[in-house]
């Protein structure tokens, strides 16, 4: 297990370099000027001053090495667009809300999705199953921007006095309710379906029959024998979803005016803020790698067979 983790950590290094290179190459293909934000032209001399200041006049390999060095030394450099800010500042300020939103949405998805799926599986092909699966399928299929829009309209605007949730922002706990639901509904539906399928499959396993033949109480059969084994595919799917929730929530962040990293990423790409895009992409890759590692560890805990196999 420890060896596995060490190996994964070591593999992180070339992969991060690869991600930096990938992003660097991609970003260099983009036309556009990070210093020109409006239709107003920038005089040649000023453009030169700016390029010199940020080293954009250096050869590409010098710039690449500078980025790599920046990542290694955890100093991602200054933003080209927000003139008084470092990428580190931006990450520090915008990452926590995204992380929190992603974590809340994930928690919402798991806390509601797994029981819903379990309920559906244990009452397979009866009305609780059908109800749960209608909820899950609709939740999965309806785009989150519509969900967000409807939630805001009904709960914050139309019945705002009753529900006491604000339309936007990320400060009070009330303000976090609607974004969490809007973002978490899709994954919740996904987990519900995943859990249902997985539980149904586990229930057919011979060892479940054994457990029942031993006279174990139904609760124990479900909780200890069925659920635990059924969670393995759920955990496997949870890693990438967490990555997606933390980084891919730009639509939700936009609609709810949440100062998060996803919303900022789009702005940075649009504004050609190379250093910010680079920094955020690396951060994103790191999150995914860490999430995958956590999944592997959880996986090892849930399934002892994989523990020694590696």
């Amino acid at each position, binding site marked *: 297990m420890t060896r596995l983790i060490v190996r994964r950590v070591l593999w992180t290094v070339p992969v991060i370099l690869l991600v930096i290179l990938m992003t660097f190459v991609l970003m260099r293909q983009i036309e556009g000027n990070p210093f020109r934000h409006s239709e107003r032209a920038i005089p040649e001399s000023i453009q030169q001053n700016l390029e010199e200041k940020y080293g954009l006049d250096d050869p590409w390999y010098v710039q690449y090495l500078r980025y790599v060095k920046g990542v290694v030394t955890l100093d991602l450099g200054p933003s080209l667009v927000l003139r008084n800010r470092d990428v580190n500042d931006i990450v520090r300020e915008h990452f926590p809300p995204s992380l929190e939103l992603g974590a809340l949405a994930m928690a919402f998805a798991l806390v509601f999705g797994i029981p819903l799926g379990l309920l559906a599986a244990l009452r397979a092909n009866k009305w609780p199953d059908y109800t749960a699966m209608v909820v899950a399928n609709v939740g999965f299929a309806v785009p989150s921007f519509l969900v967000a829009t409807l939630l805001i309209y009904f709960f914050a605007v139309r019945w705002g006095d009753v529900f006491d949730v604000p339309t936007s922002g990320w400060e009070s706990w009330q303000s976090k309710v609607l974004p969490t639901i809007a973002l978490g509904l899709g994954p919740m539906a996904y987990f519900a*379906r995943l859990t249902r399928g997985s539980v149904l499959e586990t229930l057919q396993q011979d060892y479940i029959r054994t457990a029942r033949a031993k006279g174990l109480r139904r609760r124990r059969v479900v909780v200890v024998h069925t659920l635990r084994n059924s969670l393995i595919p759920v955990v496997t799917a949870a890693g990438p979803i967490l990555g997606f929730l933390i980084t891919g929530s730009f639509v939700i962040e936009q609609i709810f005016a949440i100062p998060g990293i996803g919303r900022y990423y789009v702005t940075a790409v649009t504004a050609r803020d190379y250093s910010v895009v680079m920094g955020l992409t690396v951060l994103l890759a790191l999150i995914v790698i860490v999430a995958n590692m956590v999944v592997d560890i959880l996986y090892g805990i849930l399934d002892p067979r994989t523990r020694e196999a590696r």
Partner: protein
Amino acid sequence: MSTTPHQRRALLSPLRLRRERRYPELPNGVPGEAGTPVRASSLWRDAWYRYIRNRAAVIAGVAFLALLAYCLVWPLVSPYDPYEVDFSQASESPSLAHPFGTDQFGRDLFTRTALGGRVSIGIGFAATLVILSIGVAYGAIAGFLGGFVDNTLMRILDALYGLPYLPFAIIVLAIFGGGNFWTMVVALSIASWFTTARIVRGQIITLKENDYVRAAHAVGARWLRVLGRHLLPNTLGVLVIAVFLELPGVILGEAFLSFIGLGISPPDASWGSMAQDGYRAYRTSPHIIIVPSVAIAYLILCANFIADGLRDALDPRTRET
């Protein structure tokens, strides 16, 4: 080998909804199990029979074909010009003349939804096919060459597995300066093939160990022939399922990108860009956002149930029992 088999299974089973239970030593005559009189039919015919027994999958399949027919045929016969601007009819609610209402320009949404569907579904399938092609190539190379190459390629995938594709899609769209059909396809597939590559590679490895492949190899068949004759055809089932599993993600991705304004250029529209149009007007004309959103949901539901049906019909593990 780390986590592959289970993760592979997780990827294939999330949407598993209706699957016949495997009965303990099944009595003769229980459908689809040992003891059923052997039909001398091919894998695909067998799969077809399994598929049409799945009511939800059949309904979804029919619904999907109906959607395709609507998108392809309706714009040809529609009485309305989908591009003609007529402000006197702007933002009308659904009525008999305009079942889905009209948009801000007075264009018939029933016709434009069909056009948008062509674009969305087209982008969806094209991107899915690109994803599968890259994934198959990568996975096949890794699974087939094995050893050091496999190890390196897979460690990279292990790390990138689950990397959200949308940020890269945004960069790609910025490179192209905006969206049109093909730039959307590239954007949506550039960082989405990791999962497929893993599935294919796992499938190839499993099949490589199979007796008949070994046998074919033992009697001196060349690898290329083994690959073409045995491995890929057997992976095909998994890939067909993967098409419908990938499709919802791609369709939603297209919708999100369009929603933040990186969609395809007007006057063409996709469902995502139509939803973006509708979002800002939702208070006065809610139908403009609801129509394309529901269309997206409809397509995703169809794809899900079709994927479920296909998997139950084609999943080799079901077949083995």
